[in-house]
């Protein structure tokens, strides 16, 4: 029962990644693309979790945490770039 459910879940993940990729390509503004890429990262993270059950291994579970942290850092960097135009600001010298 679980095995069939996991395969269906992987298929639905790839379907939703494809739909989100449409938003990445078409999205009218830049924050649209950033939000869609963040969602793709989250989808990949849950796909890794499912694949680690399918392959019966515990070796991939660190990748979940690392991918979450990287997606968050990427979103914050995009945010700073959209709002201010730079990612890392210099010290003001006025």
């Amino acid at each position: 029962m679980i095995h069939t459910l996991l395969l269906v879940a992987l298929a639905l993940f790839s379907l939703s990644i494809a739909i989100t990729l449409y938003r990445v390509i078409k999205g009218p503004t830049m924050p649209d693309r950033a939000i869609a890429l963040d969602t793709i990262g989250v989808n990949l993270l849950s796909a890794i979790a499912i694949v680690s059950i399918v392959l019966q291994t515990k070796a991939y579970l660190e990748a979940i945490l690392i991918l979450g942290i990287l997606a968050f850092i990427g979103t914050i960097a995009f945010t700073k770039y959209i709002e201010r135009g730079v990612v890392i600001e210099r010290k003001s010298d006025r």
Partner: protein
Amino acid sequence: MTILANILIVFFISVGVLFIVVTAIGLIRFPDLYTRAHAASKSATLGVMCILIGVFLYFWLIEGHFNPRILLGVLFLFITGPVGGHIMSRSSYIAGIKPWKGTVKDDLGPEIERMKKEQGIK
């Protein structure tokens, strides 16, 4: 016991898959950036948290391996997912992206005008 564990795992994973598919549909169907950020930040976070809890229960109840990294991942996603959505829509409002034209009430616009006037920017 195994049947109960299986039912729990199947419940959590199917709820998570449902919410992730709903997220993708919301990303393709909603009209502007703010509603899309709303869909992406809330339901994707809930879906991924449900899937990770299902995977944690599988490794704990079936394989007998308690893995705290997945719980850390759940906690981290619960903190950072809504923060990412909020900060992205806020910065895109400041960068000047207009909401959908059917929006009735815009509370942030006069506030930002007042803030700019106080600080003397532009």
